[in-house]
């Protein structure tokens, strides 16, 4: 055996249902405490904990399979989770396969929402935390640096992250196609329900600073406005003050439309230099369909946004194999480097059994 003991141990959304992941989730404090406890395990040379809502993964360098079994036992004990049950959800990989997995995680290939980029930041944060705790060493440092390079490379060379795949983010993308920078874009949310909230969140996360909420229930409007640091508008003023906004998001449960063609046309006349973008996420629809025919007004309904999101998802799916092949090439090269003579031996999984047995 002449290979370094780079390993991955944990579970992900691919293996464990939400109810299990909830039990295994760690907050920052618990993660720090676990790290301290794991540091006492003999034979564990390096360790990074990647802990997100979809995965809890331990990446490290261990001297033997026993070391991994010890990690698993400590983790299960801390989470009060039966080790034999953990074994059914466990993902355990070593060597090149573990590197390939980390590459795929950082690139978003292993994410629930294929190609999402948030995970890249989470992997970076996990590595930075491990560095702060001084639990990384030569192998993890090299593997993680190469992981970031590989993920960036694949994201640039393939269409794995192209386009948005959630309705709210597609809507924000469209607003950017019209207005560019969203900092100065004024957004009016009609309706204070879940959809409105998700859309508001998406707009805010992409730099939109001016949000106004109008709901038939003023209290709910004010509640949502407070959550997002936005302002509230009496619902009956929505059409008269339409010209003050650039983007109008309709998500009410009103039985009839709440924005008429005449109101939209009047708003456009008051602000001729800027386009007006209507996003209708309501069923039945909030915005009269005729608005789409107005010059300088753009109207997208739920079906339009869903079609765009689906086309992006299909485009991303088509890139998976190409992205995976690129990562395989890179993980093989990296594995050759880190498994050079002199490196610590890998913990070898027993044939036909999971890599690490529960303690």
């Amino acid at each position, binding site marked *: 055996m002449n290979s370094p003991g780079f390993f991955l141990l944990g579970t992900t959304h691919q293996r464990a249902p939400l109810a299990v992941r909830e039990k295994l989730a760690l907050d920052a404090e618990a993660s720090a405490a676990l790290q301290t406890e794991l540091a006492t395990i003999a034979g564990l040379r390096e360790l990074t904990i990647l802990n997100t809502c979809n995965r809890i993964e331990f990446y490290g360098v261990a001297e033997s399979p026993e070391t991994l079994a010890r990690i698993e036992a400590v983790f299960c004990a801390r989470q009060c989770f039966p080790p034999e049950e953990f074994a059914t959800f466990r993902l355990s990989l070593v060597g090149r396969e573990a590197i390939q997995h980390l590459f795929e995680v950082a690139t978003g290939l292993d994410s629930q929402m294929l190609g999402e980029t948030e995970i890249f930041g989470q992997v970076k944060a996990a590595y930075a935390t491990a560095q702060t705790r001084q639990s990384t060493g030569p192998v993890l440092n090299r593997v993680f640096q190469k992981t970031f390079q590989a993920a960036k490379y694949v994201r640039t060379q393939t*269409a794995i992250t*192209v*386009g948005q795949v959630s309705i709210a983010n597609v809507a924000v993308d*469209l607003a*950017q*196609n*019209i*207005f*560019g920078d969203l900092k100065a874009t004024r957004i009016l949310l009609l309706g204070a329900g879940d959809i409105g909230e998700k859309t508001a969140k998406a707009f805010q996360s992409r730099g939109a600073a001016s949000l106004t909420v109008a709901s038939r229930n003023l209290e709910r409007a004010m509640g949502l406005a407070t959550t997002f640091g936005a302002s509230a508008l009496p619902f009956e003023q929505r059409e008269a003050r339409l010209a003050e906004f650039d983007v109008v998001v309709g998500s009410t449960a009103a039985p009839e439309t709440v924005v008429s063609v005449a109101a939209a046309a009047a708003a456009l006349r008051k602000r*001729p*230099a*800027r*386009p007006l973008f209507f996003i209708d996420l309501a069923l039945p629809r909030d915005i009269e369909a005729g608005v*789409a025919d107005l*010059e*300088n007004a*753009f109207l*997208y309904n739920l079906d*339009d946004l869903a*079609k*765009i999101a689906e*086309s992006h998802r299909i*485009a991303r799916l088509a890139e998976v194999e190409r992205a995976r092949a690129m990562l395989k090439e890179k993980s093989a090269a990296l594995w050759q480097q880190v498994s050079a003579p002199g490196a610590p031996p890998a913990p070898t999984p027993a044939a036909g059994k999971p890599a690490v047995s529960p303690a």
Partner: protein
Amino acid sequence: MLAAFNDRQWLWLSAGFYFAGFLLGTWSLLRRGRPSGVWVYALIAAGYGLQLAGLGLRGRAVGGCPLGNTFELFQFTAWSAISLYLVIGVAFRSSVLGYFTASLAASLTLLSLAIPAWDSGRRLRFFGHNPWIELHAALALFSYGVFALLALTSLMLLLRHFSLKSKNLGGLFSFLPSMVDLDQIGLRLLSTGVVLLAASLIVGANYWLRDPASASIGKLLVTVAVWLAASIALILRLRGRLLAKRFAWTGLFLFAAALLSLWPIDSSRHAVTVPAAPSNPPARP
């Protein structure tokens, strides 16, 4: 070997680089689904340098700005547009603008090179040793270059508008800048074009008042008409009367008008025409 090139050979080489930029952009779009920003920019910059060398040689031969025939007018207009693009392109960060600019520059330069009749005669010192009238012509042509770039951003605005209205946002459309950004850059380009052309007309008028025979009424009318059209478009845009699609169509119309006006302007000049021969680099002492 390059040192022995005459002006037309430099300009052919330059057109080749612009064309290569167009080909690379097309290939990149078809193969990778997006224009190749950096490489197209590099090819355009290389073409620009070569064009500068070619126009420089021609300028030496004619003893001033090379604006003596249709060939030179087309070359100078393309060069002006590229000059602006090299500045704007960096700030605007639009790979599509680079692709369109390479296409326009390749079209203008290759067309001018492919029609020998446009370069069959040349006016020697047609500015009559007067640097002011030379400045007038250079400013006017530079403003035409600005209109060329305005036409490109207008085309991009029309494509963006079409993509948003038709809900077709993939492929080339996904690399277009936002409508508001395109509208803003269009407004700035139109303002720049109007100011440059106004400055050119003021300089030219000053000369013409002292020597009314120096320019024909036809040339005056055409040049003033182009400036008036651009000024009216600018006023309407600032007053919110010419927006989005109509503003974009106006941008395209203005460039077409500017390009078409080159013929009456060129044919109205009275200077002595001599047969053109490629200008070789100056002999070393």
